[in-house]
């Protein structure tokens, strides 16, 4: 009896979730695809003039796309060296007692809600205004720093676990051939772990591209045009979607929201699939003890 109930419930749960998710995706794709054209990106501005920044774009999502791309590049540029270096340190250099504490800190960092990263950036600016730099204001660079904090745990975790999952023979072989530990890391272990690390990087990029709560508090605005510099305000795709959800007055603006939402989804989905593929090849190659990739 319990068995039949459980079975029925499982089928019901799967049917409900499948139905809702497919409906959701279908709704978004159908409404979004119909808006795809050059006007969605550039409004009525000539394409080339818009791309070179000669003319401002008023009714397109081009400035938001540029803002998001810059933001992601800056954030990953900040987080990548820090995250990979920390991952290497935790995997191969830290002593056990320290490793426990550092690991704990990384786990807590991973659990902090993204709005708190934004609040941290906001508090930082308040603090700077009060003390050293009275003209400090929220900007692209600040958002990138806070986003870097947000994605740091992904990078550390993926680097550390991939390095630790490498076969011990690989490490010993390099050392016995006379590599110093760092040469061994640079020329043997890191290349062997590169796919795992890369999948971590891609996941981090996807996370940085989609997060809205952080940038909401650290300098994103609805109409900034192309970002003027890393100390200026900027537009971003996720915030644009958020803004249109509450402020869209006409059918055309709503359609633009659907277009932007679908583009953001396509970006994050593509990044996710890339990371998924890379991760699956990592596990496969070590499962087969196939040391020479």
């Amino acid at each position, binding site marked *: 009896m319990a068995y039949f109930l459980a079975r029925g419930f499982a089928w019901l749960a799967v049917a409900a979730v499948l139905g809702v998710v497919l409906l959701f995706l279908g709704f978004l794709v159908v409404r979004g695809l119909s808006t795809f054209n050059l006007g969605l990106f550039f409004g009525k501005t000539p394409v080339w003039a818009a791309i070179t920044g000669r003319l401002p774009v008023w009714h397109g999502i081009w400035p938001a796309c540029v803002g998001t791309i810059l933001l992601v590049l800056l954030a990953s540029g900040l987080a990548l060296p820090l995250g990979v270096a*920390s991952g290497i340190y935790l995997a191969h250099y830290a002593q056990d007692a320290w490793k426990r504490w550092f690991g704990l800190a990384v786990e807590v960092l991973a659990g902090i809600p993204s709005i708190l990263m934004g609040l941290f950036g906001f508090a930082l600016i308040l603090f700077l205004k009060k003390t050293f730099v009275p003209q400090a204001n929220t900007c692209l660079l600040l958002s990138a720093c806070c986003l870097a904090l947000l994605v740091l745990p992904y990078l550390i975790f993926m680097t550390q676990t991939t390095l630790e999952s490498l076969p011990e023979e690989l490490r010993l072989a390099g050392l016995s051939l006379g590599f110093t530990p760092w040469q061994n890391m640079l020329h043997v272990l890191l290349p062997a772990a590169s796919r795992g690390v890369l999948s971590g990087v891609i996941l981090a990029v996807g996370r940085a591209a989609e997060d809205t709560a952080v940038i909401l508090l650290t300098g994103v605005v609805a109409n900034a045009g192309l970002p003027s510099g890393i100390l200026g305000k900027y537009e971003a795709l996720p915030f644009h979607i958020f803004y249109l959800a509450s402020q869209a007055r006409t059918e055309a603006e709503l359609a633009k929201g659907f277009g932007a939402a679908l583009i953001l989804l396509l970006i994050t989905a593509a990044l996710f699939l890339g990371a998924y593929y890379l991760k699956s090849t990592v596990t496969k190659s070590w499962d087969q003890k196939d040391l020479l990739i």
Partner: protein
Amino acid sequence: MSIQREIPLAPTAEAALKTHWRRLNRRQGRVQALLLLATLISCGSVVAILGFLTYFTVPILTEGHLTAIFSWSWRPFHGKFGILPMVAGSLCLAASAMAVAYPLGLGICGFAHGLGPRWLRGPLMGLINFMTSIPTVVYGFVSVIFLVPLVRTTFPASTGYSWLTATLTLSLMILPTIVLLIQAQLQQVDAKVRLASAALGFSPSQTLLWVMRPLAARGLWAAAVLGFSRALGDTLIALMVAGNAPQVPHSMLDSIRTLTAHIALVVATDSTSRAYQSIFVSGLILFAVTGAVNLSLRRLQSRTPAGKRHA
């Protein structure tokens, strides 16, 4: 060094080798120092976040506004800055989203482990994995366009921006977290007991219900705790569809405001210092709760695996 001693070298060669080694050693030291520095920065950021939140909360304690912050009324224009309605809102929303998502997650995991056909397992888990990549703001957007009007027409008393709408949307967002955690635990247990329970004559679904479910208790708890903390930490869905009225909800159709949405709203609109103080207290509360969740998860994971004690 010892090998080098056995083979006689010209004095100049020996000196050259020694400088080379010294240089290598120095570089080792430098590299290690750099790596340690990076790790200290990464881990120090947690301390920095906590430090800044505390720094901006201290004035409340010294000025004695703490009781005013922990009160039930948020009316900034009347000098009332109570955040307890938001605390209640956060708890209500997280709890209700879990109440929807957790049973669904259990059902899906059961389906993948014996209650459903085997060929559906791959595509189903693929889809759940894919759901982790859907941006929160996209969930919010579709919910505003699709679900809010639906709720409004179904319950004319409501504006559509309600606890109910946020619950449904949020439960969809935290579902993958729950499913993937339980699934990982079930897979571990499955590898250990599959043959034994098959040899005893259990069917796959009987194995799931009577052998694996008790053994996977740890994973079930971890999924519940982590799912709850995810729901608590979400900002965008609450901000977009929950309505944001600072009140204690009386029904699922009432509008509510969460701590996370409160922080975003105050930063966007208010500018009085008392209002700002309240968001740093909210931040500290969120930090404390999510931190506690992670610590308890760590304890949960470090205890002896449930599977070992029995098998």
